[in-house]
């Protein structure tokens, strides 16, 4: 059993999320989860890389993609990565109000990203570019869709954390949960950067 949070923070000289031994090990465990998630995305990137020129009767990447919405999505996600960084900064300063403000902003930016992405997908599908049209489109939807599903799950997770922080305050448990959420969110930002580069920008290199 660990000491009370305040004592642990002084003795260990670590932030609250690392103050409890059992909670702290969960952060290491979460890094291991992220590592396995890297492998999921690596395999999806592999299949996309292999299939990206197999367009069958469907559109090619350069015909299908428009960079406008993609730049908007990238800006939304990069900004949300910044705001969750500020949320963790506020958490370390024990500023609960600022933390909740930045967390809500992150949540809204994430929701904006998912909305833009769904709109993008609907546009593609209504133009006839469905995922059974070609191997390229299958690879595209499964890769980008898996990322979008991760972001959607992250939004729900953030919403639950918002309630937990509002009710329980900044404890060793809630700070650890917020910290792991921030790791998850930054990780999704990194994955998106590779999707942006390898799928969308690469699609425009002819």
């Amino acid at each position, binding site marked *: 059993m660990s000491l009370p949070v305040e004592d642990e923070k002084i003795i260990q000289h670590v932030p609250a999320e690392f103050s409890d031994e059992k909670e702290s090990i969960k952060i*290491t465990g979460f890094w291991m989860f992220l*590592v396995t998630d890297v492998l999921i995305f690596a395999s999806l990137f*592999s299949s996309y890389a*292999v299939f990206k020129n197999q367009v069958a009767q469907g559109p090619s990447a350069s015909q299908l993609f428009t*960079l406008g919405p993609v730049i908007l999505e990238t800006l939304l996600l990069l900004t949300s990565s*910044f705001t969750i*960084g500020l949320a963790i900064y506020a958490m370390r300063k024990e500023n609960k109000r600022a933390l909740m403000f930045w967390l809500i902003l992150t949540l809204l930016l994430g929701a904006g990203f998912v909305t833009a992405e769904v709109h993008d997908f609907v546009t593609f599908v209504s133009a006839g570019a469905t995922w059974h049209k070609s191997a390229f489109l299958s690879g595209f939807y499964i890769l980008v869709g898996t990322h979008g599903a991760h972001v959607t799950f992250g939004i729900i997770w953030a919403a639950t954390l918002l309630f937990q922080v509002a009710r329980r305050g900044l404890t060793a448990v809630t700070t650890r949960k917020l910290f792991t959420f921030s790791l998850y969110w930054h990780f999704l930002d990194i994955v998106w950067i*590779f999707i942006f580069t390898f799928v969308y920008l690469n699609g425009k*290199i002819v």
Partner: protein
Amino acid sequence: MSQPLEFRPEAEDAVSDEGEALRFMRPHFGEEKFPWIQIWGYIGSLVLTFAALIMVVDHVLPPLALLSVILALAVGQAALQLGVFMHLRESRGLAWQIIFLGMVLLMAVGMVGMSIWIMTFKSGVS
């Protein structure tokens, strides 16, 4: 918080037990008065993103060279996110995540690289 620390942090003890071999996993916690690191990280990520975008829109290089350069920018941006926002070196005790990430980098690059490489052999068929 102002009283002198009577105990050495557990983290440093762990490191001294392990000797110099695991020095790179020594935990390090950043403490700032104002979130400058986050702000510079955000500006840096925007600069890298728009650099890649402008290079592609203006077709400044031949295709393969251009792809290599924008992928290098993406790797730079991933490193920036890890270092600035993900508190890569923070841990209680040694920062084992550095080992996990090094391993998975090897696996992911191997997986993607080898898949692309092996599929070039049947390019006439598929």
